[in-house]
């Protein structure tokens, strides 16, 4: 089941890439109807129809995989919250499909298109969480260590993940012309600051925890890559502003920026879940220590 959950998370990442290709190639309305494409399941494979219909095909596959995963979890998963997360993922993928249909039928209204992009990232987080918590390593009991300092690493990592998610919303709003670039730049500064703070905390106080070091390292590398891709994407867009069509250089860099954004969010989630699992908040640590002292006395 764990391998299947990992596959669903990977397929969801591919779906995000396929969606980014649709937006960057301005292909969102290349297929005017929904749920069928040109009234069939096999529309003419030309021009931007390839991106839009390709996105629909991958989305349908992810929908099917999510149904299978939810059923599998219902039958085999003993933890209730994991089963519920599977149902939530299934509900999200259904809503996501409906939002995709609304964007097509109502000519890409910015709020719906932004909601579609944001729910995609939230759904990806659900599949990543399912992939992580169904693993054998996760199900073995973890020895909790104290998490000195306030805020605790678990809280800090959650803030960083929240800031990355907010930044993805602002990025989606920018792409769908809901906002200008200023909020996205401000969001980048906030998210980068929180990520660096969380990394500093891991390196300074939890360097003996390899999983935390790995997840923080992945987060740091992806953040750096994401900042570079963000600048590249802006420059490519400016350089090709007068082009009669979306140019490949702009499309590839922007899609890479969206994909790296999703991976940055996933690594922020990984660090959050791992730190919550492995670390005892400072107050809890103190209580434990006091209890131990009382027992010893």
């Amino acid at each position: 089941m764990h391998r299947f959950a990992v596959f669903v998370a990977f397929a969801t990442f591919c779906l995000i890439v396929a969606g980014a290709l649709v937006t960057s190639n301005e292909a969102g309305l290349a297929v005017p109807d929904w749920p069928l494409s040109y009234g069939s399941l096999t529309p003419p494979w030309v021009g931007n129809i390839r991106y839009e219909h390709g996105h629909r095909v991958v989305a349908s596959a992810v929908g099917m995989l999510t149904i299978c995963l939810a059923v599998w979890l219902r039958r085999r998963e003993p933890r209730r919250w994991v089963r519920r997360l599977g149902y939530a993922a299934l509900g999200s993928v259904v809503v996501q499909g409906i939002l995709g249909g609304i964007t097509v039928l109502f000519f890409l209204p910015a709020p719906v298109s932004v909601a579609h992009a944001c729910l995609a990232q939230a759904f990806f987080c659900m599949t990543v969480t399912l992939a992580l918590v169904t693993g054998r390593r996760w199900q073995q009991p973890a020895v909790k260590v104290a998490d000195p300092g306030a805020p605790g690493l678990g809280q800090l990592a959650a803030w960083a993940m929240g800031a990355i998610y907010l930044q993805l919303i602002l990025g989606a709003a920018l792409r769908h012309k809901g906002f200008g670039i200023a909020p996205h730049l401000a969001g980048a500064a906030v998210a980068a600051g929180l990520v660096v703070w969380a990394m500093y905390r891991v390196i300074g106080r939890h360097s003996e925890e390899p999983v935390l070091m790995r997840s923080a390292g992945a987060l740091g590398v992806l953040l750096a890559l994401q900042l570079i891709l963000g600048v590249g994407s802006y420059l490519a867009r400016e350089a090709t502003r007068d082009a009669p069509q979306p140019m490949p250089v702009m499309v590839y860099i922007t899609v890479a920026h969206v994909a790296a954004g999703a991976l940055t969010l996933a690594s922020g989630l990984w660090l959050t879940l791992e730190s919550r699992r492995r670390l005892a908040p400072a107050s809890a640590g103190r209580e434990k220590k006091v209890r131990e002292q009382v027992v010893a006395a």
Partner: protein
Amino acid sequence: MTLRMILGAAGIVALVMMSACGGGTKESAEVEKKADAPAAFTKVDPATAATITGKAAFAGKAPRAARIDMSAEPDCKGLHTAVPSSEEVVVNSNGTLANVFVWVKGGLEGKTFEPASGAATLDQKGCIYRPHVIGVRAGQTISIANSDPTTHNVHPMPKSNREWNQSQPPKGSNLDRNFPRPEVMIPVKCNVHPWMKSYIGVVDHPFFAVTGDQGTFEIKGLPPGDYVVEAWHEKYGAQEQKVTVAASASQAVEFSFKGE
């Protein structure tokens, strides 16, 4: 049980959405009904009818025409012997600008004119809209052809009229549509081939023209009077001039657009 509840909720949402989709048709029918309402048409006496002529001059450096890359679409690329260029800015050899929509913006208030008798045409040929800019009357039929061996979708993006998006198969039958409300300008796009762009100017009278390869225009049959004439270009924006035309007279107007 929970799974059934989720799927049931999704079904209800889908039904609500479908009923919401149906609402637009009624609104459109009402607009068309209003447009068809009988009106007393203004008759222009041919003996006193005036004319406004002129040109759209271009000054400064003309931008280099951007090349359209059709390599991802062999059906389109194969229709051209040379790499086609964007028609966003077409500066003629005589220093004038093509694809400028010139129309009488003010001075005809309260007057209604007989509806257009024929249809305007817009073709998709070589995966390019031809012509690039057209003018039509409000309610006039626009007959949209697809002369290409590939699928297109025709997607006008108006603000005052109703937006629509219609696919058109290779060499399929013409799409006959109209815009009931005046609107200058309505961008039209093919989302299958994102370089394909066109503009439609919709006005409620017959006094408009589009500049061609000589950069000139002629608006005939006007009642004598004071008018505001606007010239619109997709890159260089709109500018207007006040023009007074006497009975049976012809008045020349020159618009000047500046490049970088």
